[in-house]
């Protein structure tokens, strides 16, 4: 039971961290000053959520180790036990449990917006359910994050409408973005073993039930944005079990370089 709760928490944390990392790549490169600040604010919100989840996961890992009487940190290195930093900076690609959608590249503003919209719509539905979790800590993190995510959802859906129902060029860019990202939207609603376990114990959320409300909301926004809801059915999977696209390698290189090059370094 404990391992699936740890995995579930890490999955939630990794989603937020990787998307936060991707959004932060816009810092200083945003199309307009206000949007540069907006996307980096969203990035900070996501990293804040990730921290909360990682702190909880580290606490769970350390508690479970004390129970087993082991002195060895599962992550190696000089660290005594796990911490939010070791979980973020010292795990390898296959140990990350984020879904494939959040590691996709930024490419252009349209694809960034669409990725944010798909994820925020999913996260909004997820956190609303997670507030009712039997695990108090997860419920508390969910309640706090929900306000931020409500804003992310509002901001990104308005941009989808603005770009979709905008000029010829913006509409075309949105169509390209849908083409690129649609195949990663199936995975988030297919529960893997630790999610099923957590949902059975009323700690986690059954994500398969979120699929229909998500599709309906996305359809509404797409209609207003004059975009067609895709009918393609092939979906890429594997992220939640550690099988990632090659994007994650590059993301983690940037994220983890300093800690790996100078172990134990501090600001």
């Amino acid at each position: 039971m404990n391992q699936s709760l740890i995995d579930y928490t890490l999955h939630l944390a990794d989603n937020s961290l990787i998307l936060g990392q991707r959004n932060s790549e816009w810092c200083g490169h945003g199309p307009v000053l206000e949007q540069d600040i907006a996307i980096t604010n969203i990035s900070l919100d996501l990293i804040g959520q990730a921290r909360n989840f990682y702190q909880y996961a580290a606490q769970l890992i350390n508690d479970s180790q004390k129970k087993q009487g082991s002195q060895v940190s599962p992550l190696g290195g000089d660290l005594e036990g796990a911490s939010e930093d070791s979980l973020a900076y010292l795990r390898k690609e296959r140990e990350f449990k984020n879904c494939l959608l959040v590691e996709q590249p930024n490419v252009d503003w349209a694809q960034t917006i669409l990725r944010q919209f798909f994820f925020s719509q999913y996260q909004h539905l997820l956190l609303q359910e997670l507030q009712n979790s039997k695990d108090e800590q997860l419920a508390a993190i969910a309640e706090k994050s929900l306000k931020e995510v409500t804003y992310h959802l509002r901001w990104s859906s308005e941009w989808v409408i603005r770009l979709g129902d905008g000029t010829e060029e913006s509409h075309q860019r949105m169509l390209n973005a849908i083409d690129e990202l649609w195949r990663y939207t199936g995975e988030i609603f297919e529960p893997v073993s630790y999610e099923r376990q957590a949902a059975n114990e009323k700690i986690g959320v059954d994500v398969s039930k979120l699929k229909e409300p998500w599709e309906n909301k996305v359809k509404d926004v797409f209609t207003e944005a004059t975009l067609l809801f895709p009918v393609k059915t092939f979906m890429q999977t594997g992220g939640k079990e550690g099988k990632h696209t090659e994007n994650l390698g590059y993301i983690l290189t940037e994220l983890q370089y300093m800690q790996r090059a100078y172990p134990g370094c501090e600001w």
Partner: protein
Amino acid sequence: MKNYIRKFYYGDIPEEKGGFHNTPLGDGGKQSDWPLWEVFIRSKQGLDHKHVGSLHATDAQMAIENARDVYTRRMEGVSIWVVESKYIHASNPEEAGELFEPAEDKIYRHPTFYQLPDEVNQM
């Protein structure tokens, strides 16, 4: 030399009198459609909205969201007003002489000639 520094005034002062003209920001003037908005933030219920700056946005909804992102990062406010700059009618600072200086020497308009008893001296 005098043309190197352009002074911009807030509001709808026409360009000939030194007012701000919506110059294109980026490539090919595509962003010249983005009007300028003035932002007012109220920090606590009951106080007045203070002017904190301006930003570009395409419509009112976006202006409020941009103002929230740019001007309330450090809990500066709980309420935002945005007004398109062209709707703010401002007095031209170059006319400040004729508008405001005459009031400087009309001391009879200030209630300063009363002798206040000590009990209410802090008024």
